[in-house]
């Protein structure tokens, strides 16, 4: 039995045991059992993934499973990378859930003011159903990259969707918005599945077999039109799962409404599987394609990155902000994949390899910091019952560990050194930079698309920094803006432990990215059109790019920062007055003590950027002026409300839904209750068929 097989066996067994434990165990130990077994399942995934990344491979056929289809599993380096990513997030989420679902937290409800007086409960995530579903969700996610036939892939994919749907619904009793989110999620994910299904089934139908091996072999025999159809359909399907704009509508809703460890799993692990699917089908199974595939992916990537980051910049709901940031980061990955596709089509392997490696590395980095961010947001949510940044604040003193870890993750998400997000964005930019020198005379497509891609990445970096400064500074610093925030305290230790483990991952990835070099090379080696593009050589402190001039040492930067900061501190001590810091009142413009209502909120913080991007975001304002009864010139109160609707969503989806509703209403007339009418359908159908039969003889 190989290590991979053993790892997957652990995944399955631990998940089964966890589901059983979650469903049957007494309430006292339910959280512990389900959480730890979920973590164990994730650990199994990590084991299998690490083994695959270190060069092992494994495949297996299970003949007695899945009637009319073949159950096949196979793990190669590409699967391995995603197994590790998902497994790591699952470990953290599993441990975290032990604390998160323990009694004693407060959870948001539909009430305007968070119910702080009511008895704090453990939320819907502590229910039997959710505890039993959590390990199943993790296991189905881990099986997706291991699937090696169309049936297996679709089955595990849909199992993943179903189990996550159950988890999204966890808090359905306390908030109406949960149902709405679940419905959007269910609809979009099912439509996505349909697209993937059509694509893969056409693929399988064209090659005459449904195992990945036969798909790979038969891919060349398909007609170009069919290949492109397969690619476009699967890309849209996987893209919707990845949260690609404009198929992202489910994402900010579902991520915001589900329990936070589930948000972390969805945003950091599940979304990546969409990216996995695109790479698997386009680069592996189809074996690369024409240039316009890459352009398509690149275009969607640019759209997602820009729109996601813009929405994140103006969002005031912390978890919605994180959700939109996921769209942004997926956009960056798609930019890498799309550009890699363009260069692979041109036969430029080093660049294609570099960009693809950047995308995969960014998937890992994003998983690490986004998991940490969601877990941090979850801790805040549990402590305060709030997701609204406008009412948070002052947590640095009350939840120091959470604040520090969230802060670091925000740094990473803003792609600033020494965070790990910086490394993969740097790699992405390297790939784009060298498109000029390594690409020979650039084709028109390259010359148009690459500058635009760079512009998008650059814009994303700037706005991302603004968004995360807002999230961290407004959410955690300054004075508390509500009673709930003022009375916050750290949650149980498993939550902090889980966050610390993710922090460790972030640090490792951020400071020693060269560790990922060999695994990434192995992944590239399996893909026919990007083979030989060795991305990260380099050992020790500096990251080199093989065959390309470019090197960077995140460790050096971090060490430099720390060293200089230490020197500065020492210098100030020695030069300056050696007196203890005196606490003084802040300047209140000559007035009295500061009221928290005077503070800048997230809304006001984002206001300048909102104005700048007014034309894109189109915020809705609503001003209500209430005068006194005596005179309408004396204003009693002014109410200002601002809402930033998702414009892409509002443009596309409501018309579609309205059309469907219209059609549904119209077609009801078909069943109007008249038996004569019903028989007439038959009569005319009968006559019509006979006419057709007569005339086609």
């Amino acid at each position: 039995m190989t290590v991979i097989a053993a790892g997957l066996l652990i995944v399955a067994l631990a998940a089964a045991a966890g589901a059983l434990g979650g469903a049957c165990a007494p309430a006292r130990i339910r959280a512990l059992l389900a959480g730890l077994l979920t973590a164990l399942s994730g650990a199994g995934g990590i084991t299998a993934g690490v083994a695959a990344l270190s060069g092992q491979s494994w495949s297996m056929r299970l003949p007695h499973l899945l009637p009319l289809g073949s159950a096949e599993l196979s793990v190669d380096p590409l699967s391995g990378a995603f197994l590790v990513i998902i497994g790591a997030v699952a470990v953290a989420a599993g441990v975290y859930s032990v604390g998160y679902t323990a009694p004693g937290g407060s959870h948001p409800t539909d009430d305007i003011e968070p119910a702080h007086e009511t008895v704090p409960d453990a939320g819907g995530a502590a229910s039997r159903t959710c505890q039993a579903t959590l390990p199943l969700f993790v296991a189905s996610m881990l099986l997706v990259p291991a699937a090696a036939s169309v049936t297996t892939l679709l089955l595990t994919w849909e199992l993943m969707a179903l189990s996550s749907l159950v988890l999204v619904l966890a808090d359905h009793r306390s908030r109406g918005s949960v149902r709405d989110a679940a419905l959007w999620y269910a609809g979009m994910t099912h439509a996505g599945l349909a697209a993937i299904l059509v694509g893969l089934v056409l693929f399988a139908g064209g090659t005459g077999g449904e195992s990945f091996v036969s798909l790979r072999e038969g891919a060349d025999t398909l007609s170009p039109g069919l290949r492109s159809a397969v690619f476009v359909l699967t890309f849209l399907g996987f893209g919707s799962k990845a949260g690609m704009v404009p198929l992202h509508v489910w994402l900010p809703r579902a991520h915001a409404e589900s329990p936070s460890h589930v948000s972390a799993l969805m945003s950091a692990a599940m979304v990546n599987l969409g990216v996995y699917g695109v790479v698997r089908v386009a680069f592996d199974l189809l074996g690369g394609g024409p240039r316009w595939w890459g352009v398509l992916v690149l275009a969607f990537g640019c759209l997602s990155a820009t729109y996601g980051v813009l929405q994140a910049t103006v969002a005031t709901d912390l978890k919605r902000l994180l959700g939109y940031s996921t769209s942004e980061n997926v956009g960056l990955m798609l930019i890498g994949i799309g550009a890699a596709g363009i260069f692979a089509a041109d036969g430029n392997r080093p660049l294609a390899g570099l960009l693809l490696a950047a995308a995969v590395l960014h998937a890992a980095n994003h998983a690490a910091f986004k998991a940490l961010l969601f877990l941090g947001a979850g801790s805040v949510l549990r402590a305060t019952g709030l997701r609204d940044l406008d009412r948070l604040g002052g947590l640095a003193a009350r939840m120091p560990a959470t604040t520090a870890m969230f802060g670091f993750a925000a740094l990473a998400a803003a792609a600033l050194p020494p965070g790990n997000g910086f490394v993969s964005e740097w790699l992405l930019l390297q790939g784009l930079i060298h498109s000029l020198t390594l690409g020979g005379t650039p084709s028109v497509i390259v010359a148009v698309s690459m500058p635009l891609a760079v512009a998008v990445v650059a814009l994303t970096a700037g706005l991302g920094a603004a968004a995360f400064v807002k999230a961290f500074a407004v959410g955690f610093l300054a004075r508390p803006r509500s009673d709930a925030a003022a009375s916050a305290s750290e949650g149980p230790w498993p939550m902090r432990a889980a966050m610390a483990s993710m922090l460790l991952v972030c640090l490792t990835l951020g400071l020693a990215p060269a560790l990922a070099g060999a695994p990434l090379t192995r992944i590239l080696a399996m893909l026919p059109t990007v083979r030989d593009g060795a991305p990260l050589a380099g050992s020790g402190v500096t990251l080199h790019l093989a065959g390309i001039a470019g090197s960077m040492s995140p460790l050096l930067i971090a060490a430099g920062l720390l060293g200089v900061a230490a020197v500065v501190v020492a210098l100030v001590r020695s030069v300056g007055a050696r007196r203890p810091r005196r606490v003084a009142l802040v300047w209140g413009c000559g007035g009295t003590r500061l009221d928290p209502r005077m503070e800048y909120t997230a809304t006001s913080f984002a206001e300048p950027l909102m104005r700048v991007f007014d034309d894109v975001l189109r915020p809705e304002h609503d001003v209500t002026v209430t005068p006194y009864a005596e005179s309408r010139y004396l204003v009693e109160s002014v109410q200002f409300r601002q809402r930033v609707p998702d414009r892409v969503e509002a443009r596309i989806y409501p018309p579609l839904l309205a059309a469907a509703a219209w059609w549904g209403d119209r077609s009801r007339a078909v069943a109007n209750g008249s038996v004569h009418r019903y028989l007439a359908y038959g009569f005319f159908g009968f006559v019509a068929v006979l006419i057709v039969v007569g005339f086609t003889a």
Partner: protein
Amino acid sequence: MSEAAYVQSLNLVVGGLLLTAVLMLWWRELRAIVRLLVAQGVLLAGLAGILAIQEGDSQLYGVAAGVLLLKGIALPAVLRRVLRDGREATESEPLVNAASSLLAAAFLILFAYAVSRPLVALAPSPATRALPVGLSMVFLGFFLMISRRRAVSQVVGFLLMDNGIAATAFLAAAGVPLIVELGVSLDLFLIVLVLQVLTARMRLKFGGTDLDDLRQLRDS
């Protein structure tokens, strides 16, 4: 029976069947229509009898007797009972008036001739040449069902349709195998009984048998 006499009598019977079918569409008096149904049953039995003589098939004699019993006597009797219980003696306001109905009937008969060309072409014989009549009866019966309001009219339409199929069966293949014939006849009889019971219940619940009252179950 000589060939000429066979063809003569066959055409006579078939013509009678078509005539009764058209008359059913024309008349409004329900009792008269039931009488037409009796006539049709007798003609159908006659058709079976003629074929029995022609083919020399002893089984067909039995079938002819059965048809007479079922379609000439039993089913009309059931319908008469339905009519006796109720007050509606005429189809007062059909959905399609008589003139239009007759026009439609003309079209349908032509259509039946057109459609049944392959059937005749397979084995042209005096009997199969009459196949369009059977098909016409089916069409007319169907049309009757969608254009008449009263429950009884709809039952009549159904029986006309069924007679048309029986006629087709006799003309095309001198009837279906006996076991099938038995099953079919039993089913038909039971269906009509069921419909009688339902009509009676309908009268109880709705105070009439106007099918337009049955509009409660719908989506619109």
